[in-house]
């Protein structure tokens, strides 16, 4: 008799458990706050944008976000980031257009060969000031503004301590609210995130 009941219970459980489990897993997936981590490795004006745009937007969507700054990405958490530059040198994908003048003039792509750019003193400074003007003309936020908005929205900033030492920086060079960590702290964060990016 008890063997029969046991068999019956087992059969019933086999039927019910998968359904129950699916429902529970789905409920859990829906209630979990989405999470994103980004490894930020670039320290130029142009490449500073993607991490802060994605981080601030994800935070606005209600996600839990962690930015991990390492190598040249350390430039993005320095107190003053108004001196970040953009270089068309070695970047054939970057259009060189003028942010002022009549439309026909603005639409010209000044296709200057890299070898020439590299030999004109001040070319990078000129490209940087043209890029900043273009950014302002297009209603795009400044990098400092996006960084501030990210921080206000609760994005966590963590900094790779090894590269801070490698490049001879001091914690005082960086904005407040940073956590200084190593790879072993970052990876468990990334493990529980649905979105992990490397920029």
């Amino acid at each position, binding site marked *: 008799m008890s063997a029969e009941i046991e068999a019956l219970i087992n059969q019933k459980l086999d039927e019910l458990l998968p359904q129950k489990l699916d429902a529970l897993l789905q409920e859990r997936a829906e209630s979990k706050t989405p999470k994103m981590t980004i490894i930020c490795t670039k320290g130029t004006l142009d490449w500073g944008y993607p991490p802060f*745009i994605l981080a*601030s*937007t994800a935070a*606005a*969507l*209600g996600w839990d976000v962690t930015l991990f700054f390492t190598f040249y990405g350390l430039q993005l958490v320095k107190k003053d980031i108004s001196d970040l530059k953009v270089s068309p040198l070695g970047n054939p994908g970057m259009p060189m257009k003028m942010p002022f003048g009549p439309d026909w003039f603005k639409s010209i792509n000044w296709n200057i060969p890299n070898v020439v750019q590299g030999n004109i003193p001040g070319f990078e400074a000129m490209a940087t000031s043209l890029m900043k003007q273009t950014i302002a003309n*297009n*209603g*795009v*936020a400044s990098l400092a503004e*996006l960084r501030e*908005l990210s921080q206000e*929205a609760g994005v966590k900033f963590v900094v790779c301590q090894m590269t801070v030492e490698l490049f001879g920086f001091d914690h005082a060079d960086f904005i407040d609210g940073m956590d200084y960590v190593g790879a072993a702290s970052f990876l468990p964060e990334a493990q529980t995130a649905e979105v992990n990016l490397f920029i």
Partner: protein
Amino acid sequence: MNFDKELDARGLNCPLPILRAKKALGEMTSGQTLRIIATDPGSVKDFAAFAKQTGNELLSSAENNKEFEFYIKRK
């Protein structure tokens, strides 16, 4: 359509309209409606996605004269 608060996001580009809208909604109470005017063509899909993800209801989304108008009801 009636609204309780208005956000002028004209001239602002991605992701500023969304960030400003999020901030404005945060200062409102549940059930109130926010009207947003934007000029960023990307904002049409972005506000739809924002509403879906955050649970705030997108009541309407319209275009006239290269301007985009959105009504979002706070969750």
